[in-house]
């Protein structure tokens, strides 16, 4: 592998600034890497021409004029609207959609000098845990050994996680609604960070569940995640739910250690049927943090058990309204006419335009909001959501950070859970509670399974304390010293 591809984001930034390597060479190297790894089906759109053009411009600039991400190739999940590229959310219903506006997050990154090298495949409308519902086919996890049984990269940000795993970009953008950054990061051996809800503007990100959706980076290292988030986040008047609370300096104290920090391990996260290797991983996590000087204590988050059903009411409910605009009237896919009547057009357009999993969730969402069921499901779920948030609030009176596994397993074989949605939804069991509470959380690669596949540990901290979260993650990363990369020579 080209040495440039082994560098972290932070190292690459320094290298570009030193002018020892041209931006063009960086971009070309990454493009070549992506060209060589097409079998993983990670990309929804290549942006190579524009990327090279931008790199050339950078090379004529003086280093003192360089912005913080000058010349850095990034991969963007195909749910962020970017001007000049298609934005499809991996759905047939948006198959030819070109947004005339830029998402705030990608705008921030472009303004900081980053170069979008590609857009990545994902589960349709971010609904999935395996990246197996993309209109362009399944994404394959680069850790796959046996191509007759390809592994999932996780989902929904599977393309973005896979690209970072093969070093196809310095970092990538994902969105996380119930675990869609953290779980694929765990499956692909990357760091995946979901910031506090409201940290990154949702403007220009195609909505799945508005009260949960949050953008975040997938990167090789914790420091890279901190660096990337610094330039992604902003308060945005175009998003009423973005927060105007100053981001702490994420890089300043990231390496200062965690002596005296209190880490809680919730007993409810040790679930029935959890495999030995996940238990072992969690044990390792405890030990590593303790060795670094943290105090590890057992805590209780009593409503954890009901988080998953709560999530699978609220997220589909919001989605059922968010996706109502795809009706064949204004933009996007419309079925072939003639139609008997208006309803016929709606039914055919939406019937053909949406995939099976999306339709399943729209049905669930419509059902839980309908008259007669609303109180029993939606209102009840809202109450549970408050209870879950209260659990965390009281836990954070005693601890600074919470430790858990990211996912209940390593990457599974694609298709294995496709016909078993409940089993598929269980992938989110550890990531959903913090999503419901709007808390920042991160997955750090921490070990290999018995199949030699990456496993991630999750850290969760209190709202707007990304600095504490990243400091702890950095310490855990150091201790775990996960250096494995997928072997692509298969």
């Amino acid at each position, binding site marked *: 592998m080209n040495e440039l591809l082994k560098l972290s984001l932070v190292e690459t930034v320094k290298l570009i600034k030193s002018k020892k390597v041209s931006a063009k060479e960086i971009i070309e190297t990454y493009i070549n890497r992506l060209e060589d790894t097409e079998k993983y089906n990670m990309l929804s759109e290549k942006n190579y021409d524009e990327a090279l053009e931008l790199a050339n411009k950078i090379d004529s600039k003086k280093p003192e004029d360089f912005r913080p991400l000058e010349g850095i190739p990034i991969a963007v999940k195909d749910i962020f609207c970017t001007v000049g590229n298609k934005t499809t959310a991996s759905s047939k219903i948006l198959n030819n959609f070109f947004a005339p506006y830029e998402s705030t997050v990608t705008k921030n990154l472009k303004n900081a000098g980053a170069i979008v090298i590609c857009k990545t495949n994902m589960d349709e409308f971010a609904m999935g845990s395996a990246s197996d519902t993309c209109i362009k086919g399944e994404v394959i996890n680069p850790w796959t050994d046996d191509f007759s049984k390809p592994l999932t990269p996780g989902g929904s940000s599977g393309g973005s996680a896979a690209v970072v795993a093969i070093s196809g970009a310095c970092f990538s953008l994902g969105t996380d609604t119930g675990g869609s950054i953290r779980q694929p990061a765990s499956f692909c051996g990357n760091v995946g960070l979901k910031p506090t809800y409201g940290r990154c503007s949702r403007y220009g990100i195609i909505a799945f569940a508005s009260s949960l959706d949050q953008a975040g980076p997938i990167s090789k290292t914790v420091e890279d995640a901190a660096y990337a988030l610094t330039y992604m986040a902003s308060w945005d008047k175009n998003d009423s739910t973005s927060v105007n609370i100053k981001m702490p300096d994420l890089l300043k104290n990231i390496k200062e250690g965690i002596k005296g920090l209190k880490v809680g391990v919730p007993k409810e996260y040790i679930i029935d049927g959890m495999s030995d290797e996940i238990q072992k991983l969690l044990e390792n996590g405890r030990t590593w943090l303790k060795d670094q000087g943290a105090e590890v204590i057992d805590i209780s988050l009593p409503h954890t058990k009901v988080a998953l059903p709560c999530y699978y009411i609220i997220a589909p409910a919001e989605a059922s309204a968010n996706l109502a*605009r795809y009706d064949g009237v204004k933009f996007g896919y419309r079925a072939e006419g003639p139609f008997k009547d208006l309803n016929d057009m709606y039914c055919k357009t939406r019937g053909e335009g949406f995939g099976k999993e999306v339709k399943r969730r729209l049905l669930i969402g419509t059902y839980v909001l309908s008259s007669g069921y609303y109180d029993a499901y939606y209102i009840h779920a809202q109450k549970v959501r408050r209870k879950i948030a209260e659990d965390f609030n009281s836990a954070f009176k005693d601890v600074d950070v919470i430790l858990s596994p990211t996912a209940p397993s390593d990457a599974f074989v694609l298709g294995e859970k496709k016909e078993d949605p409940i089993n598929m939804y269980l992938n989110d069991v550890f990531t959903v509670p913090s999503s419901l509470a709007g808390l920042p959380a991160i997955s750090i690669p921490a070990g290999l399974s018995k199949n030699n596949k990456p496993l991630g540990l999750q850290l969760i901290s209190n709202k707007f304390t990304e600095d504490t979260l990243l400091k702890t993650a950095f310490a855990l990363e150091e201790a775990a010293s996960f250096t494995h990369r997928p072997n692509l020579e298969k």
Partner: protein
Amino acid sequence: MSDTRPYKITGKTGSWEIVIGLEVHAQVSSKLKLFSNGAASFGSNENENLDLLDIGLPGTLPTINSFVIDQAIKSGLALNAKVNNFSIFDRKNYFYPDLPLGYQISQYKEPIISDGYIDIDINENDSKRIRIERLHLEQDAGKSIHDQSPEDSFIDFNRAGVALMEIVSHPDLSDWDEAGDYVTKLRNILRFANTCDGNMQEGSLRCDANVSVRKPNNALGTRCEIKNLNSIKNLMKAIEFEANRQVSLLESGETIAQETRLFDANSGKTRTMRSKEEAHDYRYFPDPDLLPLKIEEDRIHQISKTLPELPAQLKERLKSQYNLGSYDARVISAELETAKYFEDLSEGRDPKQAANWIISNLFGKLNEIDKSISESPISSKKLGKLLDLVNDGTISNKIAKEVFEEMFMSSKEAKEIIEEKGLKQISNEDDIEKLVDKIILENETQVNQFKEGNTKVMGWFVGQVMKLTKGQANPGIVNKIILKKLNN
């Protein structure tokens, strides 16, 4: 206060009580839409006033236009209502091509304004309080256009996202006249407050009416909702028809089906639009794109200070400042434009005279041509000049009315018409004396009648002078001279 008016409907089985509640949709006067930077103007080309959100492009988000919130607060204060410190925007879900998001952002359980009222006049001395349950903010939809092509429909999204205030009354209205009075009054209050232009032709104000009937003191009957009434006249006609329809059904032993109905202005009838079974399940839930709306007391206080004079206050001021009677004050204060016209006209003149001219002459003529005072061919300035000519004795009141008619047709100045037609009043005593002498000489019979004590014959003499002068003689002087001559 009194809330009894005679029942309007008496059927075969006796009197029936009508129970009416109104939902008025008033477009907020605002440059921008409720949640986007699209222009909220009327009369633009199709799809010209669109922001990205107005056609529901993915990734776009609603953000609250705070001016609209101020307007709603102002309206609430003008309607004697409570401004809620905490309210919520909800999504009302249904599919229709002119609804770009697939849901309307509205307010359901927690409206911005609640518990207000309007007092409507029942007669000279009595008023009735109509309670307002709530005022909430919501988005308007676009407009489907079906008449441009035999195969296709088109949509104009200009109106999509424009801010509406839905103002819901309690079922306190008892007949179509009260309903008409209520909407008239509500419209005026909003226009005075400058929060809605009240233009019903352009759709800035539309009504839905919930109507049921019952025997006095019985339990409430089944109600029907009549949708989209776009004038006060239609609202009243629709309620009258609907109430009578329900009474006939009930008196012939049938039942009322709860349903939504439409009013056809041509036939004057209401017809079924959709039954209760076909009613939508709107699946309301709080819009997760918007935070709950919090309004500080201080903001309410600041806005209350900017609240302009409202119809009720104006009415009182007309009484005290201009010494107008109750009736005049009520009529003049009923419309913002009338009040403005009156105040302009009475500037430097007798207010009673000004009010009389507006109410008895101007309104009569305007009614004939079905125009409002703002469309009057005679401005307050022009009418003022006419009154000045009466007041300085140039013309008589009677001639003034003639001139007024002419002004109304030609929109010429009063002075011009008087000169053209030679209508100037004859006030020269010598000229009038000569005429009176001539009449006395030629009409011995009448002179004798007067001398025998029949003073009524006075009027006959005045009439003769007026006839000879084509009404231009100054009636005061004529009277004086005739009396003098006859008594000699």
